[in-house]
């Protein structure tokens, strides 16, 4: 019994496409968080009343999907394709181990809870 957490930082405007791509692959469950991030795309210049100022963090969304080990690659590639624009700031996907899953409603664990 082993699962993966796929954590994708994506552009806010890509959420719908990612959701649809994941759903098409059968991944319905997911959790989304509003985050701020920086990376290659270092920040953004905004307008002050006169002149500009630089903000170091950009609004992004973090999409978390917990999947079975063997579904992992399928989910990753669904996200990759739907989130890509080719410009800096497309985001990253992090994969990490999850040891157990519990469905609160029923108390089911592991595979059955996903």
């Amino acid at each position, binding site marked *: 019994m082993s699962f993966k957490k796929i954590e994708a930082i994506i552009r806010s405007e890509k959420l719908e496409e990612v959701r649809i791509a994941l759903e098409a692959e059968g991944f319905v469950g997911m959790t989304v968080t509003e985050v701020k991030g920086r990376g290659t795309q270092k920040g953004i210049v905004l307008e*002050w009343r*006169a002149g500009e100022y630089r903000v170091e963090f950009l609004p992004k969304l973090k999409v978390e999907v917990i999947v079975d080990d063997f579904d992992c690659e399928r989910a990753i590639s669904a996200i990759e394709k739907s989130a890509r624009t080719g410009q800096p700031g497309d985001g990253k996907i992090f994969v990490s181990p999850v040891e157990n899953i519990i469905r609160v409603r029923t108390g089911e664990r592991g595979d059955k809870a996903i």
Partner: protein
Amino acid sequence: MINAGDTAWVLISTALVIMMTPALGFFYAGMVRRKNILSTLMLSVSILALISVQWVLYGYSLSFGTDHAGLIGGLNWLGLNGVGQEANAGYAATIPHLAFMVFQLAFAVITPALITGAFVERISFGSFLLYILLWSTFVYAPVAHWVWGIGGWLRNMGALDFAGGTVVHITAGISALSMAMVIGKRKGYGKTPMEPSNIPLTVLGAFLLWFGWFGFNGGSALAANGLAVSAFVVTNTAAASAALAWMVVSWIHKRPSVLGLATGAVVGLVAITPASGFVSPLSAIVIGAVAAVISYYAILIRTKSGLDDSLDVFACHGMGGIFGALATGLFAEKAINSAGADGLFFGNPGLFGIQAFTVAVVALFAFIVSFILAKVIDAIFSLRAKEAEENIGLDIAQHGETAFS
């Protein structure tokens, strides 16, 4: 004789101008970081509470009471003793004296509130209240008397200030400058961005200010007559023209923002204030547009200077007020207001001289006194919040609350 139409107009104008102080609070609060939204609001609204009482007790008397040597009003109207439901013909012949008093109250309240933009996010609330009380007594009251009080020396000299370019905006803008110098920069200023956290709040504040300014300038006619209408019209025109000009300038620089447009509108309103009872709509277009350009670059310069006049009170109100007072000396027409004077462009260079002199005197006076007040309070109580309070944010640290949960 009391005229009901005039009274109705002055009352509603007063209500509008009183509403402008909380509106200013919103205008300012939207531009600070989220952790200081409420403390910024608190600065404005606590002034409304404080000065409303001060004005009734002695502020009005000091500003408009029987003249002493052209310099200050007497104490004859302490506690509004003798200020009643009949007219005071010297100030306004067709409305109750109390109506004139409360209209002036609204101005006495908003003027110090303007200054607060200079020291948001780091002021100690207790020291702040003390500063405001002293400032209202030692800066506002004398200047109001000089320019507007019967017997005031600048008024007698022929200085024109229809609705408060000098009394309100120059005193506030200049005092903001001295305050910014004394209190110093916000921690991290210049290094980390100080993002405006709630621009819709600022826009709301700005357009409530625009709305209220119809009372500010239109009400300054103290009657619902042609002059009030004229002031009303040029107010709207200058605000619009300045907003447009600001939009164009920032577009040329890069992009037109709603924050910029709102700022431009306020600057246009500031600049037309002293002139509003004396100029034509076409002049108002020019006054608004030029004021916007001046303040735009004043902000850019101020930003580079490293002085943390956080919400650019000097660049907007100080420069706007100075330009407006001078522009009155250029664009005023007796054809608009026979009780006024012609300006330079209408053949009377003398007025410009008087206006320039008035600006200089008031700016100097306001700077010196406000600087001294700030220094003295800072020495005794510290103007500045503790470092830990500034870090956490004044909302939680000084007021025990957070804007949003």
